[in-house]
């Protein structure tokens, strides 16, 4: 089996068998990439995650790109990235197609009314989790409060809000230097 095919199979499996993304994927990454194929070391995996958290994009995709790049350069990165998103593409589009057909069904619409409320509870839970990790100083509490106020009052896009917060970080860096 060629190296590219091995890379493809590993990442396709990871994309197919993990739910949730991010940290939920770490055990399978470890099993496939460290234990089985010895593509990377434990420390490299931890590095990829910590960099994945402070670079844009989906963390699991970033880890795939890093690993593929390490094994086979740019083409390895492309193969690994394609392989990890392919299961999502197929499964989601098949499911979305089925749900479009079923949307008139009474039972399905009751189920989704329940699910919509459940999802909101999950989002709120995620916010609490994020808040605990992200807000550890007065400045960070101030950023949270101001961004929230700006979002509730004005017509500010998510991109604009991220750029405003990034600006605060840059100013702080320059003042401390």
């Amino acid at each position, binding site marked *: 089996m060629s190296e590219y095919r091995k890379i493809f199979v590993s990442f396709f499996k990871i*994309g*197919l068998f*993990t739910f*949730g*993304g*991010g940290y939920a994927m770490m055990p399978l990454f470890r099993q496939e990439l460290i234990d089985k194929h010895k593509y990377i070391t434990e420390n490299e995996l931890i*590095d990829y995650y910590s*960099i994945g*958290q*402070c*670079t*844009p*994009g*989906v963390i*699991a*995709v*970033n880890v795939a790109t890093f690993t593929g*790049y390490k094994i086979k350069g*740019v083409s390895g*990165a492309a193969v690994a*990235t394609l392989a990890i*998103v392919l*299961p*999502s*593409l197929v499964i*989601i589009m098949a499911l979305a197609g089925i*749900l479009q057909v079923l949307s008139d069904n009474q*039972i399905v619409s*009751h*189920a*989704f*009314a*329940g*699910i*919509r*409320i459940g*999802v*909101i509870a*999950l*989002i*709120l*839970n*995620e*916010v609490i989790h*994020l*808040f605990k990790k992200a807000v550890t100083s007065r400045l960070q509490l101030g*950023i*949270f*409060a101001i*961004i929230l106020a700006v979002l509730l009052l004005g017509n500010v896009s*998510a*991109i604009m*809000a*991220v750029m*405003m917060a*990034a600006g*605060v*970080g840059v100013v*702080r860096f320059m003042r*401390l230097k």
Partner: protein
Amino acid sequence: MIYAILFYEFFKIGLFAIGGGMVTIPFLFDLTKKFDWFSAEELTDMIAVSQSTPGPVGVNMATYAGFQAAGVGGGIMATFGLVVPSVIIVIMVSKLLRCCAENRLLGEVMAAIRPAVAALILQAGFELFKLSVKDYYAGAFAAAFFALVYFYKKSPIFYIILAAVLGIIFKL
């Protein structure tokens, strides 16, 4: 033409949604205001499906959103757009691996962005709440469900299936 717009919009999301899956929600919510690809109610369904199917949540959401907007080609273009910025950045960064993780400027910027991301998701959640919870009956259901999620740490899939079953039983 819609493919180019999808690519461009998801490229921007890939570039600005720092921190993974759920972070894309406020950006997708912005899209519901800008385009008629999908409604905010449909966005909630997309979140549920993306969390309870295999694969990274952010990728699932982009595929679903693109598919709703323009079918199979749309799903592919949106996913492609989401992934391209991280591929480019990761390949650039992997050459200077360690100095990036310990970079002071990047550290300050990330420390400032994280609270903003929490505020963004809270606001998007509030907007979705207003759409889905229209009476006291649904409000009570939401409060009880949140208590469940908060106190019993089960996987999101468990809660989504439970919510579906409760929705059918109580005819929400």
